[in-house]
């Protein structure tokens, strides 16, 4: 039992043994479960990426057969999106939102337990398809009909896994909204909330709005395959293109679900190490809300080549370009926060600065693709692969790592090894660019995505990219070790942890944060 709660007469510490983790309703335990699960999935999805890069190391078919290659690309995406990035942010939300707004726990602790424990079952179902007749789903994570209907025994497993993941995220989102709406400490007005809380608040609404649409779309796939409906079957009066519209109506807000909390993380870290308050707080809130709104009206930019009236292409082109405005506001604000600040460069700050620079690279290639006529060239090439990996790896994943380094001392009470953290950062930052930057060139030169073999003129950059991939993959083993070592021990962290850190979790709670915190609401200035 933690010393810090000793004065709390009706409190008790965690249950002993393994059942603690199964039965827990404590937001910190559940946050830990989410984060560790996400790290495991990150390594699992990463292993599949290594298979992909191994096969693409040189032209010709060397390591795996094309069908297995397609299973790898499909499963890599599903695992990384739904298993690594989304649960990591839910884990951060669980740990941080109650501490940041001065609440004792999440609003619905039992549902919280349930929303986590659905995940291992969903991913067991999904991973088990690798061993089935016909293999795992191989039609791409976007599950386009009619191709996905050719999936073998894995098909119903894929659909039900997606249903479970959807239920889990929707429950998590309901919990976040209820917590933020009803459990803020007195004085914690909406416009005083840390940006991480704000971005999650908006993300949760996005989840509630689009996960049911995704569930609906995959249910239609299921009935098309097994119950003779023709939602996406032209012979029965349906339309395969409609699947793409419904999918991307979910899919585009989904990409913001994976990046908005990252904006929140970076907006917490940069002011700390620049030792200046965040520049333009309220513009950050409004920018986040506008990005969320715009995300609902740009979906068809994923399908410019599918055949659309000219007016449609123009509408989606201009709407997409408009997203650059609020995103630009954010980047400007982060840079202005650093301007003339007394900056120091600890690992979380390094990851955050890399986030700002490299996410902007991904944002700029996104702006290029929003131009309809040039998208006809980029569509389904490695340029797209480079673009979304810049936003998702150097964007979302880097922000998650920054968050882990930034808050781990608060969670565990121990400082991580700064030297190893810096080595991890530099290895990751260099290799990730070796990995993904050449893919821009490959895409512009015309290399299509989702192929196991390619023309010889693409050899050199693919080899470079694969070397970057192996380097980036191996560097993450170091991250696993750093996390393990920090949980086990290390130099004790101070209560404030970082010199410039602000917020309730750093100002009013000891390190490590006690098992039960803020049973009486804190004073908010």
């Amino acid at each position: 039992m933690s010393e810090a709660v000793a004065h709390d007469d009706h409190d008790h510490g965690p249950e002993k043994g393994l059942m603690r983790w199964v039965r827990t309703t404590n937001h910190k335990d559940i946050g830990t479960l989410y984060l560790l699960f996400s790290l495991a999935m990150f390594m699992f999805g990463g292993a599949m990426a290594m298979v992909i890069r191994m096969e693409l190391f040189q032209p010709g078919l060397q390591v795996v057969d094309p069908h297995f290659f397609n299973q790898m690309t499909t499963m890599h995406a599903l695992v990384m999106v739904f298993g690594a990035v989304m649960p990591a942010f839910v884990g951060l939300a669980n740990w941080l939102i109650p501490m940041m707004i001065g609440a004792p726990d999440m609003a619905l602790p039992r549902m919280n337990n349930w929303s986590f424990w659905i995940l291992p079952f969903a991913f067991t179902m999904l991973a088990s398809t690798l061993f089935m007749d016909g293999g795992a789903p191989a039609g791409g994570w976007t599950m386009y009909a009619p191709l996905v209907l050719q999936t073998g025994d894995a098909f119903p497993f894929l659909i039900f896994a997606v249903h479970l993941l959807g239920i889990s995220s929707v429950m998590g989102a309901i919990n976040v909204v209820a917590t933020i709406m009803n459990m803020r400490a007195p004085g914690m007005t909406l416009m005083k909330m840390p940006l991480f809380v704000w971005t999650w608040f908006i993300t949760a609404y996005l989840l509630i709005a689009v996960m049911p649409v995704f569930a609906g779309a995959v249910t239609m796939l299921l009935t098309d395959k097994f119950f003779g409906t023709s939602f996406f079957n032209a012979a029965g009066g349906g339309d395969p293109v409609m699947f793409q519209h419904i999918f991307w109506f979910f899919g585009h807000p989904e990409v913001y679900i994976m990046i908005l909390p990252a904006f929140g993380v970076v907006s917490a870290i940069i002011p700390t190490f620049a030792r200046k308050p965040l520049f333009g707080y309220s513009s950050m809130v409004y920018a986040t809300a506008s990005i969320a709104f715009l995300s609902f009206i740009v979906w068809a930019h994923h399908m410019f080549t599918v055949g659309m009236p000219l007016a449609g292409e123009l509408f989606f082109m201009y709407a997409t370009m408009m997203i650059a405005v609020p995103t630009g506001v954010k980047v400007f604000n982060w840079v202005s926060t650093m301007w003339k600040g007394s900056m120091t460069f600890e690992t979380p700050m390094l990851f955050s600065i890399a986030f700002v620079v490299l996410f902007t690279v991904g944002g700029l290639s996104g702006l290029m693709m929003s131009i309809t006529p040039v998208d006809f060239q980029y569509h389904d090439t490695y340029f797209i692969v480079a673009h979304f990996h810049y936003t998702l790896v150097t964007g979302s994943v880097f922000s998650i790592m920054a968050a882990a380094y930034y808050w781990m001392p608060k969670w565990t009470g121990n400082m991580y090894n700064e030297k190893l953290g810096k080595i991890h950062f530099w290895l990751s930052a260099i290799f990730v660019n070796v990995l993904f930057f050449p893919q821009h060139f490959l895409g512009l030169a015309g290399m299509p995505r989702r192929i196991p073999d390619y023309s010889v003129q693409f050899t050199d950059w693919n080899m470079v990219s694969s070397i970057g991939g192996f380097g980036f993959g191996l560097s993450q083993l170091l991250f696993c070790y750093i996390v393990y070592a920090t949980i086990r021990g290390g130099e004790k962290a101070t209560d404030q942890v970082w010199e410039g850190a602000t917020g309730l979790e750093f100002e009013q709670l000891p390190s490590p944060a006690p098992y039960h915190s803020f049973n009486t609401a804190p004073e908010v200035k």
Partner: protein
Amino acid sequence: MAEGKHSKTVTMLVAMVFFMSGFSFALVPLYDVFCEVTGLNGKTAEGPAAISKAQVDTDRTVKVQFLTNLNNQAPWKFKADVYEMKVHPGQMYETSFYAQNLTADKKVAQAVASVSPGLAAEHFNKTECFCFNEQAFEANEGKDMPLRFMVNPELPKEITTLTLSYTFFELDKLAKQ
């Protein structure tokens, strides 16, 4: 328990979830309406058009091209008897298509029509078409299938060429899938 004070929020959020689930299915009819308005996909009517006595516009000639496709490389022969016709809007024309089942099994097939450019689809009126019904074929049977159509004089002036494309879907195979 603490649930009490959250029940209003949670009810509202769960209602949103149900609303959006319903919305995902509502997108299906909405999509059809949207396609009709914009002419997306060039879907033609699924039943016969009423025979109308439109004014024949002999001053205007529109080229109508016929395309035939097989879905999934199904074992069929499917072709148009003529590949191209020059027609006057408002006049009724007849042509035919030939399809043959190349297997030793009974088959049922369905042709799905699509017109390009999409905005012309609503002005392409078929009074008789083999695509209105499923077509049954005995083993190795081949047959001529008629199409009677008229191009509506309201067809926008700038459209001078229409392409009617048929895709032949084998239904038995779909049922077995």
